[in-house]
């Protein structure tokens, strides 16, 4: 379980995350939604120790993220940010192999090779394994990064807008994949999402943020609801039941 207590982050005068307390249960796919500037990414960055918090605490299965040594935490929790720019020329396999660094510290074992092959095949990257990252399309590269995170084999996997730059087909397959990781491998997946329909159709739990605070949280049935969403996004949003899925429209 990820336990967030009274988390605060401010840049100069603007408060980005304002006293957020939240518990994310182990297992399943949890999404964090909300308008731009609501503090979603900052919250995720603090949970994954990429950004230092001003106040409050975060524990992952009882491990405090600020005091636990980085390599211990790297075996429990992994994070993938939106823009991953790498200057070195790496093949897909090289990149995925880095996921084993917390375990092997640069000296890969047979066990590590097994994990690398497993992650490559889970993301259907077998044919691309020896291609260089700069020869791949945006979607393929995104998948390679997800494979690296999967190869890290942590119980908790955090993704910051993993659907950015992906077309419909790749976005859907990415979400299916994250759901599979949660169902088949028993991972706890936390994603920051912009598309509320994706959150509605793929997630087990939704956390909605607005103006640096948590506005609402619950199951998709509870959150994907006209008054709640209209209030959060400050536009009239209508919810329709289509093929057993809750779909929102907000174009009028």
């Amino acid at each position, binding site marked *: 379980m990820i336990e967030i207590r009274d988390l605060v982050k401010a*840049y*100069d005068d603007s408060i980005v995350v304002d006293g957020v307390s939240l518990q994310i249960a182990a297992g399943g796919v949890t999404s964090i939604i909300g308008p731009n500037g609501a503090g979603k990414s900052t919250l995720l960055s603090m949970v*994954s*120790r*990429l950004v230092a918090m001003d106040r409050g605490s975060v524990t992952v299965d009882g491990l405090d993220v600020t005091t636990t*040594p*980085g*390599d*211990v*935490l*790297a*075996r429990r929790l*992994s*994070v*993938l*940010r939106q823009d*991953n*720019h*790498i*200057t*070195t*020329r*790496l093949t897909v396999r*090289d990149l995925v192999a*880095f*996921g084993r*660094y*917390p375990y092997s*510290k*640069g*000296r890969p074992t047979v066990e590590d090779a097994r994990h690398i092959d497993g992650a490559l095949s889970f993301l259907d990257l077998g044919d691309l394994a*020896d*291609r260089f990252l700069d*020869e791949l399309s945006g979607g393929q590269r995104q998948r390679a990064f997800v494979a690296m*995170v999967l190869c*890290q084999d942590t119980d908790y996997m955090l993704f910051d807008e993993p659907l950015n730059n992906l077309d419909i087909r790749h976005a859907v397959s990415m979400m299916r994949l994250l759901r599979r990781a949660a169902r088949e491998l028993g991972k706890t997946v936390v994603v920051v999402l912009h598309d509320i329909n994706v959150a509605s159709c793929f997630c087990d739990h939704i956390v909605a943020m607005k103006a640096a605070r948590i506005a609402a949280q619950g199951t998709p049935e509870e959150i994907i609801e006209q008054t709640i969403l209209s209030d959060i996004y400050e536009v009239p949003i209508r919810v329709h039941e289509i093929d057993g899925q809750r779909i929102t429209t907000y174009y009028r």
Partner: protein
Amino acid sequence: MSRKRRTPDPAFVLAVLAVLATVAIVAFMTLGARGNWDFVLAFRGRKLLALILVAYAISVSTVLFQTVTGNRILTPSIMGFDALFALIQTVLIFVLGSAAVSALDPRPLFAFEAAVMTTFCVLLYRWLFSGATRSLHLMLLVGIVFGVFFRSFSNFLQRIIDPNEFVVLQDRLFASFNTVDTSLLGLSAGTIAIASLVGWRMRHTFDVLALGRETAINLGVDHRRTVTIILLLVAVLVSVSTALVGPVTFFGLLVANLAYMVMPTHRHAWLLPASALIAITCLVGGQVILEHVFGFATALSIIIEFVGGIVFILLILKGAAR
């Protein structure tokens, strides 16, 4: 896109580079040697050792600096390291006078210079990373501004210094591979050996660090601590090379990028030795050409800066086209 990937073995590439470096070294030691071999070998050996130390220090410090910054057209000199060196020299001669500075034992002077440069690096780094903004690019910008400040202040002192003193100072500030200060060789070799030992133990961490801050932290690297150690290593290595021959700007850029080009791997365990061997080949080979083709008509640093500057422009143009 079924382009066959031609991957030469890194060990093979490294062996070729080692052979090239050996050829350059043998040529340097034996070409045009006349007279007593004991004298020739001892005399040239000292010069060779200095060239090798400088080549090693510049190449390794540049590769590490580029790994930390995630940028392949930066060199440590952008942080104002060599400008600080020039400033120290200028202030010393300005305050003490050239006669007194020349009379000083170069070893404590070297230790002093290295200490000042390392302290500068740590202060700059700590100050910028302790605040709310922990941006490497901000640190580089501040480094550039400091560099300009150091250079301007040196220039100012050089304007008002005694003209005779200025001539002595100018001589000390020009990168020269002919007038290497051989009394510093032992100390430099020792310093470099310690820095290398620290660096070699961290070689796998360098690979992870090259993925960028966020990915490195995700993979469990203590980013702040590791970057501090690397910048310290860079400061020490730059102090050694500048103290031995003076500031060389583009040489590191040249050899580091050549190493990335020829080495079919991202691993620093291969990249660092490769860049060092390329640097030795260029520096020692260049010195041979200088001595036997140009007959000392020019300075090696001028040739290096010329070639390095062209590579720099090419890299920028390539980056713009991408």
